[in-house]
């Protein structure tokens, strides 16, 4: 074949151009650490990346939801523990007051402490997280338990519960409404306390006796709520673990799909640089061996 100068120049420059393009591409991948930055880099993987990022966002959101829920549930759990202690203390006092050796005056003194504990219980039942009461159902704009005339306490929250998303099509209740914990379902604990108070102040031994029985039922009711809260905490914990694992797996997949594999990219860069040098050198050699050189 005849070889013209144009051919030599043309094919060499064309090859150098393409090699340089590949060098730039490899270098971009190394610099950005991203193998896939735009849809045309790998269309099917790019589509998958969007879905993976969406799934990752979901999981991270669930983790966020669960962290928020767990904080509330932990406060509720802690409050229930304190409530249990408080009722046990009232029961202790009631048992002490039941004794025939306790005078009417002694019962009135005990009643004073019980009244304080009663007020303390209202505070506990009105516990808030970030300004929002924990035991108000969904009516979270005001303290749910309000002290009325005498020692009466009314529940002004509602019976609704709040759920949060914790997984794919999975929600978990994070709120125990106050009427399930303090004013029901077995007994109204505030009434139980105020009944004990009345019995103490009226020196009514039989009444105290009845009151102790009621307090036992109250303790059972709180235990039940503690069990429920514990179950919620467990569910949140499980979902949290799942989301963490899934999240890590997606991140790994995303990284596998889109991150530059340094070894591959560096090898490619080296390869293309070598090709570029070889082409440049042979190019110079070719033109060095022109007839023109020998005609001088």
């Amino acid at each position, binding site marked *: 074949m005849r070889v013209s100068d144009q051919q030599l120049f043309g094919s060499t420059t*064309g090859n150098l151009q393409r090699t340089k393009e590949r060098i730039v591409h490899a270098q971009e991948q190394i610099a950005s650490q991203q193998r896939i930055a*735009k849809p045309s880099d790998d269309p099917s993987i*790019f*589509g998958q*990346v969007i879905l993976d990022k*969406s799934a990752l966002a979901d999981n991270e*959101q669930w983790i966020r939801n669960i962290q928020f829920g767990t904080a509330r549930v932990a406060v509720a759990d802690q409050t229930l523990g304190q409530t249990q202690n408080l009722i046990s203390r009232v029961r202790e006092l009631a048992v002490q007051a039941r004794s025939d050796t306790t005078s009417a005056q002694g019962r009135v003194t005990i009643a004073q402490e019980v009244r304080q504990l009663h007020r303390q219980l209202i505070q506990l039942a009105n516990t808030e997280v970030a300004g929002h009461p924990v035991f108000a159902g969904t009516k979270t704009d005001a303290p749910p338990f309000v002290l009325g005339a005498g020692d009466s306490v009314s529940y002004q929250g509602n019976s*609704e519960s*709040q759920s949060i998303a914790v997984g794919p099509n999975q929600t978990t209740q994070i709120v125990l409404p106050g009427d399930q914990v303090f004013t029901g379902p077995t007994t109204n604990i505030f009434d139980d306390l105020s009944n004990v108070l009345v019995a103490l102040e009226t020196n009514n031994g039989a009444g105290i006796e009845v009151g102790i029985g009621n307090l036992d039922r109250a303790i059972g009711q709180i235990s039940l709520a503690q069990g429920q809260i514990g179950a919620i905490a467990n569910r949140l914990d499980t979902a949290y673990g799942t989301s963490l694992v899934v999240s890590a797996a997606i991140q790994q997949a995303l990284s596998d799909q889109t991150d530059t594999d340094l070894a591959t990219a560096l090898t490619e860069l080296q390869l293309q640089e070598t090709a570029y040098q070889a082409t440049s050198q042979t190019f110079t050699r070719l033109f060095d061996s022109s007839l023109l050189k020998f005609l001088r």
Partner: protein
Amino acid sequence: MWHGCSDVSAERLDRRMGINSLVDIAKSALFTAQQAIAVTGHNIANVNTPGYSRQHVTMAENIPENGSPGQIGTGVHAESIRRSFDSFIEDQLLASRERAGEFTASSDALARLEPLFGDADNQGIGAGLNEFFGALQDVATNPSDLSARTVFLSKATALAGRFNQSAATLTAAQQSIDNQVGQTITDVNRLTSQIAGLNTKIADAESSGQQANDLRDERGVALADLAERIEISSIEDATGQLTVFAGRGHVLVDKERTYLLVGVPDLSNNGLLDVRYDAGAGPTTSLGPVIQSGRLKGLLDVRDQTIPSLRGSLDTLASELVTQVNLQHRLGFGLDGSTNQDFFAPTGTTASTIAVSLTNVRQIAASSTAVGVPGNNANALALAGLRSTDFVPFGNVTFQEYYSTIAGSFGSATQGVQRDLQAQEILHDQLTSQRGSISGVSMDEELANLLQYQRSFEAASRMIVVADEMFQSILSMKR
């Protein structure tokens, strides 16, 4: 001839005339060598001229004279100066230019659209959807928290903004491509008029039996430039003039006459230019649908197909988002008890018009019941659930799945064109190399030719000296 000098027969007079004819022969050799050197020089000079075809001199013997014992030669002449040229490869090169023009135009245009999908860097609409639904979940977990609501509203505004920005980018790209269409039409008309002018010059030059090599090269370059812009076919007539066709037999150049392409704003296509053919008389006809290749085809494809289809998909996405979010939002109640409120402006159902209409964060309808239960998040959960719901207009997939399909198919189209372009560039290089093999100038070859013709020239000069010496010898006999 030298033997004639010693001949004493009746032919002596003729033999003497033979010295003159020796001078003539030498002269013809000198001229021819000179011409050959000039052509070689021309080749060397044009080694880098695009479209130049190497020329070579065809030499032929002069008509011999009758004589005894036989015909005697009378020297040499340059019969023709021809260019080395293979019309088959030239045709292939033209076709390759057409496709390269098409793929370059569409690949450039598509590459400029790729930043729309900045999702690898969390910049696209997909990332916007993630943030929107994430912030909505925050409202669901903490429905009475005003700051979560504020964040959600700003994420929703940002998402609408991403849609608006994408639509604006598409419109700007379409406008920019339209300007390129206009420019290409101007280029086409300039090139056809150049070809028509060269047609006349070539016919003039060749009518006297000349080969208009350089003019033909020049016309070849113009033709290739034209092919890069629009698919053409051409026929050469007996006088060497080209008739150039585009589209379906629409004559662009007929000998010295040109027919123009015109860009007419098409009101049914947002005022974008319709490429029309002006036959000189009667109404113009639209060429758009019949252009098969070339830059115009690449531009029109992206402008009239890729961009509208992308915009259509984004509009579907925006429209469904507005409809579904509003539908669910109207069912819920805000912190202030407001209900039946739209979240997005119900009139803005395209990517360019989508906008959040709710301004008061207390009116975000997270609750499923009326006023007074700020902790109720049932409606917020239902809204957040839209994220994983399949919708019919998307072909029963979710928002993100639909969006990923849009990005994926756009990516495939872009990648396809880029690969076509790469393949075309390699093919073009190969064809150019083949053309170079036939028509390109080889410096070595020309230098060798130069030496060869220079030697011929020297020998011819020597012949004149010899003839002169012969004259001197004869003249000196008289002394």
